[in-house]
């Protein structure tokens, strides 16, 4: 029948489906694993360094929350801090 000769739009769909799901599972597992490790700071992980959290530069709303996570190092260099208020106001 014509059914059996139906055009295949995808080759090896099962393999691709498995690969896709394996990738998402890996992503989810890594996200969970990394979140248990927390933010880099006093640990051996490479911490992006910045004196002030980006969200606190120019605003005060998120500061207590950010501070409560950990006495962490903060990621960007100082010149970022100067840019943040502009970015914040643009975003909001």
């Amino acid at each position, binding site marked *: 029948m014509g059914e059996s000769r139906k055009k295949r739009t995808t080759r090896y769909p099962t393999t691709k489906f498995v690969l896709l799901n394996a990738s998402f599972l890996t*992503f989810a597992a890594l996200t969970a694993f990394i979140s248990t490790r927390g*933010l880099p700071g006093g640990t051996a992980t490479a911490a992006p360094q910045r004196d002030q959290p*980006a969200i606190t530069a120019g605003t005060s709303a998120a500061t207590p929350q950010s501070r409560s996570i950990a006495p962490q190092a903060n*990621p960007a*260099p100082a010149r970022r801090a100067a840019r943040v208020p502009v*970015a914040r106001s643009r975003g909001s």
Partner: protein
Amino acid sequence: MTADTHFWWYASRAAGITSFALLTFSVWLGLGASTRIFDGLLDRPWVYEVHKFSSLLALAFLVVHMGALLLDRYISYTVADLLIPGLSPYRPAAVAAGILGLYTSAIVAGSFYVRARIGYGMWRVVHYASFAAFALALVHGLFAGTDSPTVWMRWSYWFAATGASYLIIYRLLRLATGWRSRRPGRTRPQEGSAHAGSAHAVS
């Protein structure tokens, strides 16, 4: 999940690692196909399709990696920071390597779909850029990755780079020793057809 205010930061790191793993897988498959190291174990069309699909998946997770960085409030990247090399406030050189790796990967992945249009020779030349994409991704991960100093991540990079290096050296050695003319089932014209050796070579 702890500290879920930083979910996007964690998701970005995970997506970056996943993307690098997929890129590594794709590079290994491509090199494995070109060296025919999988012959007898895996069907070549299957290897080619998975190679192609994994490179697209790597790009997709790269987009997730960048999208999560935009949503994240830990560093507060802007679109320009993520698309223009050198603008990143955090380790600009290493991030620039990642951005260039993204563009290179996108060109290589896109070349799959214009292969008939640009011709096999040009496609193959473009495809060599995948080595640069892999190297740029490796440099980006090593020098910009938050998790790079950890043992598990270092071993992952080492494993990925060693596997790719082995396959590249193997491929070069086989090319240097004239392996093409010894393949069974194929006749190789001795002279006069410049394209004969490339029509079956690979990705």
